[in-house]
């Protein structure tokens, strides 16, 4: 049985017919070709698939595409304001070498942005480490990810994003 879904992804209206069991991450990757959102586990723990749904971070492997009819979804591909300008969080990740293999990075960046906003742009190291509970990285040892998020918080505030 297929179900029709329509939602806004990265500012564009998209629609498609999906199986009832199709996860949001499958819809993004397989139907829309937005392969920046990654799948790193089967148990909703690694966080590589985090996207924003209606402004909040969500693991796109934990929600069905058909639950999101009418929703506004932002993925890593839709984050940078233009081709030559990155979001302050992306920029902070680059400045602080907060990524190595790049696989966890999209989820990390999406989680980190939500974290900064939820904490009203005010973070300390302990909070960042605790809040990263839902995102695994095997390369960086988290040191530079934490540094990047702490650097991005004031940058996001002054950029008004």
């Amino acid at each position, binding site marked *: 049985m297929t179900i029709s879904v329509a939602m806004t992804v990265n500012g564009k209206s998209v629609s498609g017919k999906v199986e009832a069991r199709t996860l949001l991450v499958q819809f993004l990757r397989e139907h829309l070709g937005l392969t920046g959102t990654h799948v790193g586990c089967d148990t909703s723990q690694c966080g590589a698939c985090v996207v924003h749904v209606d402004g909040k971070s969500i693991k796109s492997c934990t929600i069905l595409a058909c639950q999101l009819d009418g929703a506004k979804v932002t*993925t890593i591909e839709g984050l940078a304001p233009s081709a030559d300008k990155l979001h302050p969080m992306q920029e902070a990740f680059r400045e602080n070498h907060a990524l190595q293999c*790049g696989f966890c990075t999209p989820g990390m960046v999406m989680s980190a942005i939500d974290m900064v906003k939820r904490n009203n742009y005010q973070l300390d190291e302990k909070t960042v480490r605790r809040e990263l509970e839902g995102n695994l990285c095997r390369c960086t040892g988290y040191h530079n990810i934490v540094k990047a998020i702490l650097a991005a918080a004031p940058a996001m505030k002054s950029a008004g994003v």
Partner: protein
Amino acid sequence: MTAETGIGARVKRKEDQRFLTGTGRYVDDLPLARATYAYFLRSPHAHARIKSIDTSKAKAMPGVVEIFTGKDTADAKMGGLICGWVVKDKHGQPHKAPPHPVMALDTVRYVGDTVAMVVANSHDEAKDAAEAIKVDYEVKPSNVDLAKALKGAPEVHAEAPGNLIYDWEIGVKADVDAAFAKAAHVTKLDIVNNRLIPNAMEPRAAAADYDRGTGNYTLWSTSQNPHVLRLILSAFVLGIPEHKLRVIAPDVGGGFGSKIFCYNEETMLTWAASRVGRPIKWTAERAESFMTDAHGRDHVTHAELALDKDGKFLGLKVDTIANMGAYLSTFSTAVPTYLYATLLAGQYTTPLIYANVKAALTHTAPVDAYRGAGRPEATFVIESIVSKAAKELKMDPAELRRKNFIPKEAFPYQTPVALQYDSGNYPPIIDEAMKIADYKGFEARRAEAKSRGKLRGIGFSSYIEACGLAPSQVIGQLGGGVGQWESAQIKFNPTGNVQILTGAHSHGQSHETTFAQIVSDKLGVPLEQIEVVHGDTATTPFGMGSYGSRSLAVGGSAIMKAADKVIAKGKKIAAHLMEASVADVVFENGVFKVAGTDKNVPLGQAVFAAYVPHNYPLQELEPGMDENAFYDPANFVYPAGTQICEVEVDPDTGTVEVIAHTAVDDFGNIINPMIVEGQVHGGIVQGVGQALLENAVYDKETGQLMSGSYMDYTMPRADDVPSFKLGYKVTPCPHNPLGVKGCGEAGAIAAPAAVMNAVHDALVPLGVTHVPMPATPLNVWQAIHGGK
């Protein structure tokens, strides 16, 4: 230009733009028209005979294209997977080499062993159909317990009686025994190096396509070494000639060793692509990664250290049983021998060392190289026993180490276990680490912690590693089946920009940046005009790939050699253009000059002349600027360092918190400190993970993998570790052109011993002398309460 982007500069990474914007291309991301999807049915039993497989119902399921079983591979006379390193046992006999079928034929030997491959129009349809395959198993007794493997446990393979793969030794036991007879003190240690599951964040994946028109196969694989994978598939397993098989390892999301090896799934996909007639894709679910990626470590060791009355080491004896799992993975046999026992001198002058290593089979996933591969196990033995000896002798652990360090003047230093350390200077490293860690202030911090009810401890780990794999002739003498050189090609385009083609492979190591820095520095080409190409057997020269911290020391050296050839050729072109003698031409900052004159030819001009050779010495010189080099190292490289870990243990709960962790390393010259720091951070956390959190556990009754998901296998998370304090000391490597050592594995090699020594130090007031690794709250609590 080069000051900002050359050797030593903290250049931001070229690869980041695509990874930060979601435009990286990993294997699973590939859009392949008409693709089918594979799903592998795996054994639910640790050991069973397959009585029958009925695929008839599954074949009729929606979307199913084809189903293959071991019978199909046998009918096709497919070769088995190979172990590429022949270790000779103590009697000179080659190790036992039981067959490793790509698909189980009549027996399954671990939970996860490959039983059938379903190809369907979608992943979900393939998975649904796999559930409909009926396999009739006759369950047989199994053993997952390494300690019992050689004591009459059920046999894994008839070809390896008693489950023994080899009984290997290094050193002369009688000489070491004689040293022990003279010892004033002997410290004894029994430890288990816990089994780990690598867990690169990108699961293993493959896609294969067959072109009927050309007869060419293409395999996309999450490989750390696409050329080696192709060689194995071509020469040993599938018989597809190398020139008809292209292996592409695009962006790969971490490897840590687990993606070196040739696995069943990519082999089956390649083979089946021509039979199915459509591309086939497969990506491991995380549960499959846990079950079937080659695991790491898993040693049971007894060690003894003999000391004289002043604390000088007289001899070291080590007995180790190493778990191979159910089949021998690609380089498994070398890990607990030549990458382990040859490192047992550590940083010390221990004059006599004897090690006996027995490799054993169990009904578990294959075990092979994982970040550090043998060297973390060696470091854990040495650094645990040295710290234990210090405690027994009531000596400061740093002082006992310093007393036994190989002195600076002794390099090159021949160890009693085959290696010759090329360079090093260890005392300044430990001094710097103690300064950064504020060792002097530790007792005050311990007292303060005590006032809060916490037990604070400090632990040292002074590691040595041999990496930069490796001098080919040495590898050949030791039984390795391949060369260990690396290749490079520097290909200028007519307009002066450059492609560096390397046989190394980056799966997080940042080669696109580091290698570009080397060439920018050496040839004066702006960084943005350099592109690094890797990971495709059709475009890059044959190379050995990336593992064993070899990419820079060996691959970077090949790039330097190729750059030297560019300069040599450029000098001839420039001499022609300047009407000067080649001998008078010098190359500085990207410009050829005639010394003492104002004549000059920028490299770009020489390159252009080479491609548009209107005014060019065509009689003596070929046109073009495209230089190849192969570099075979003269020796391993020997990074060394000291880590100091400080922990607090909560005696009520057994919880261990890492409060501070310091690492001071000698990696030789450093190309990009930002990238090196990142490598060290990540390595330390994998080491802390091993020490405190991670453990691959099989149920001893059923052989089921109990730690088979992120709910059961504790990966280090951000709040499990602190930020780190790093420092460097530099003794350049004397035998490679960059003076570099390797930094990829050091963190993971040193950290487990540093953490465990800190835990033991913290527990001294409670009289605890041994906590098993990982020091989980349960293990610590039980150690405190006498195993209750």
